[in-house]
């Protein structure tokens, strides 16, 4: 963070207005963002330590105790095979976060590269790339993801690729716009005159400026990626059983709601919702942190 603000030439520093200080200020000013950061910490904790802490093996079936309502033994009840829903929900955190982080990271990297090239050099490269992105955007995105997973097979990797593909245009567009504005700006020209290569100017001086708005996009997309994976699971294109995953648990549990076994869908659904919720709120918080107008 410190690096990016340092390279933003038009922010005039005042005494005491450090980046950290600003973050603290925004957080204190906005309890919702603070809540979002706390929840993020909680989910990260689940992802790292969850599998070691859960009371039951998330894969172990127990036909004798199938479909039990929540109790002290099974906080979130058991599913139709007698597996502990609580353990499955917690253990699934790692996979779900992995899918969304990996997918977003992939689209971030590819989108940034494509966007920087198009924005910096412009010309026919820019035109071709723009048409390609338009083409992807013109697809109904969820259906495109479905098609990709159906064609490649429903493994975790392919779900990540599919989610990444439909996100690339957003990043590429953003970076292209930011780079395009700054490629002729004074600091870029100066760096160029100082003997830096195009690539270096682009990577070190221009690109970092687009990071703040990108961070917001990343955070929103993380939540969206989870929803996307859940939707794929609902139509049967999710990860293979018996791996616990929120989307699959909600999708399968949905059929049990009417017969009264609400806990099968509601708890994973709640968790999924909270995770997406966290990322969405986080995006807003980040926007406040990086938005210079908030610095007055």
């Amino acid at each position, binding site marked *: 963070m410190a690096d990016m603000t340092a390279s933003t030439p038009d922010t005039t520093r005042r005494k005491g207005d450090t980046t950290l200080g600003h973050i603290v200020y925004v957080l204190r000013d906005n309890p919702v963002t603070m809540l979002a950061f706390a929840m993020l910490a909680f989910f990260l904790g689940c992802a790292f330590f969850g599998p070691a802490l859960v009371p039951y093996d998330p*894969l*172990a*079936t127990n*036909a004798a105790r*199938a479909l039990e309502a929540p109790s002290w033994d099974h906080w979130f009840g058991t599913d*139709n*095979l*007698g597996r502990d829903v609580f353990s499955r929900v917690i253990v699934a955190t790692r996979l779900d976060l992995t899918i969304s982080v990996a997918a977003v990271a992939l689209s971030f990297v590819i989108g940034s590269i494509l966007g920087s090239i198009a924005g910096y050099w412009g010309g026919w490269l820019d035109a071709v790339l723009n048409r390609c992105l338009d083409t992807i955007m013109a697809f109904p995105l969820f259906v495109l993801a479905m098609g990709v997973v*159906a064609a490649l097979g*429903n493994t975790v990797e392919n779900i990540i690729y599919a989610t990444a593909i439909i996100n690339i245009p957003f990043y590429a567009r953003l970076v292209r716009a930011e780079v395009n504005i700054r490629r002729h700006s004074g600091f870029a020209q100066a760096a160029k005159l100082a003997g830096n290569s195009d690539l270096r100017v682009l990577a070190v001086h221009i690109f970092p400026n687009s990071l703040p708005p990108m961070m917001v996009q990343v955070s929103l997309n993380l939540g969206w990626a989870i929803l996307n994976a859940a939707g794929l699971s609902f139509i*049967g*294109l999710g990860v*293979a*059983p*018996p791996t616990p995953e929120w989307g699959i648990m909600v999708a399968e549990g*949905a*059929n*049990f*709601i*009417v*017969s009264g076994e609400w806990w099968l869908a509601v708890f994973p659904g709640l968790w999924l919702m909270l995770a997406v919720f966290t990322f969405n709120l986080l995006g807003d918080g980040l926007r406040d942190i990086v938005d210079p107008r908030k610095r007055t």
Partner: protein
Amino acid sequence: MTDTSRRNFLKLTGTTMGAAMLPFLKAMPAHAQTGGTIVVVSGQTINSLDLHRTGTNRASYQVAVNCYDRLVSFGTKDAPGGGLSYDYDTIVPELAESWTISDDGLTMTFKIKSDATFWDGRKVTAADVKWSFDRAVSAGGFPTVQMKAGGLERPDQFAAADEETFVITLDRPSKLTLPDLAVPVPFIINSEVAMANATDDDPWAMEYLHMTPAGSGAFKVARWDQGQQLVYERNDAWVGGPLPSFERVIVREVPSPATRRALIERGDVQMSFNIPNKDAAELDAMDGVDVYSTPIENCIHCLCPNFNFEPFQDANVRKALAYAIPYEAIFQTAAYGRGAPMWGGEAEITDTAWPRKSPYMTDLAKAKEHMAASGFASGFEVPLSISLGLADWMEPTALLLQEAFGEIGINTQIEKIPGANWRTAALVEKRLPLHLENFGGWLNTPDYYFFWAYKNGHLFNSSNYLNEEIETLVDSTLHIPMDDPAYAPNIKRMFEIAFEDLPRIPLWQPALNVAMNDAAGYEFWFHRQLDVRPLTTATS
């Protein structure tokens, strides 16, 4: 909403009796013994009104059943598990008034009912029957294959002797021919209407009949909104059987099983066709909803080890699988106890009943013994494939199998295959090393089942099983009558070989579940589609 709905409803039915089925009038006595409307929900979608057309799906077979007649039909008997069932052993007339079979069994002569008419009022003639049969054997694809099973292969086998006499000439006598005339495929079309709408490119009027049925059956199609609903309207001039009780039957497509369950439970619809096992078990315990779970004849849910996969060529490995399966847990979790167990049977085979229990049961010690005795004592890895479209029962089954096989050193990864690919991978290419399969034969004899599922190269033999003795046994048994002295010994020998070689490990015999709320008269059919003709209002 009461008033408004009633007015609209009357517009729809054109009869005051229809109001009897409306939810808000449910308390009214079912005074209308004939007339009225019944609403049925189903998760499947009807994609054509013509069974002979390429691409017509299973759900559409009901149109052939309800809107068309065949020469003959099956009788009715009480079904195990409540309700009625078709009776494979009794053939009853539908459009044919009577029939004779020559002594050598090669010539069948049918006399057509003289009062039978098509919907347009024209008399049904032998020429219509011939045209329809010619169409079935010429259309290609499934109808042609099914006709062939009964020895009906070429148009020159069919002749219209006179207006009311239809003659079939067979190449060889077969016990399957007459029953094959009662399956949905050889239905009789109004050939004049069809030919008037045929073109040079489309001599069998596939395009026309696809959207517009032209038959003589008990119901006409009043309305078809593809993907939404099919509305049947009674044909009062029907002579194929007793006049149906309902004037109108609405079959509504509702994809979500949870929604279907809510609808039937609340009584907003009178029938929910083909419901999941779990709903069947729970609705059965409820007042007001009647559930019929009929074990599907000649159908078994199986685990199939593929002989192309090296470890499964070892008989000990296959037996280890059979002993490791947690049958009871699977039957309870995947089938919720609906259907019939297919394990723990007698070792000695004394009768020809089929489907029958295998002599295997859950016995981990024995499974481990067999594993140790095999060439793969240290275990191996294999994907366990299931169909996405059948995940309802396949997924819980696969999960329990995965756990149990892990105990004897066979590590499985569950692979879900989408619908379009499933048929190709499992049945056509037969490349799945270990998978679940659920073949059910329409014609209810064990040799017919073996013909499709145990003969090498045949479609449902997805295990690539080849046994010379089975090949000759099936060939010599398939067409001989069931009272032939060779029949019973042949069948018993097939059973012995099948249970010894285990190319298909039986899990359970599935049930077709149907829930009814304020309606009665449901009859189970081997084709597992809805026959709306016998349905009545609840008699209480």
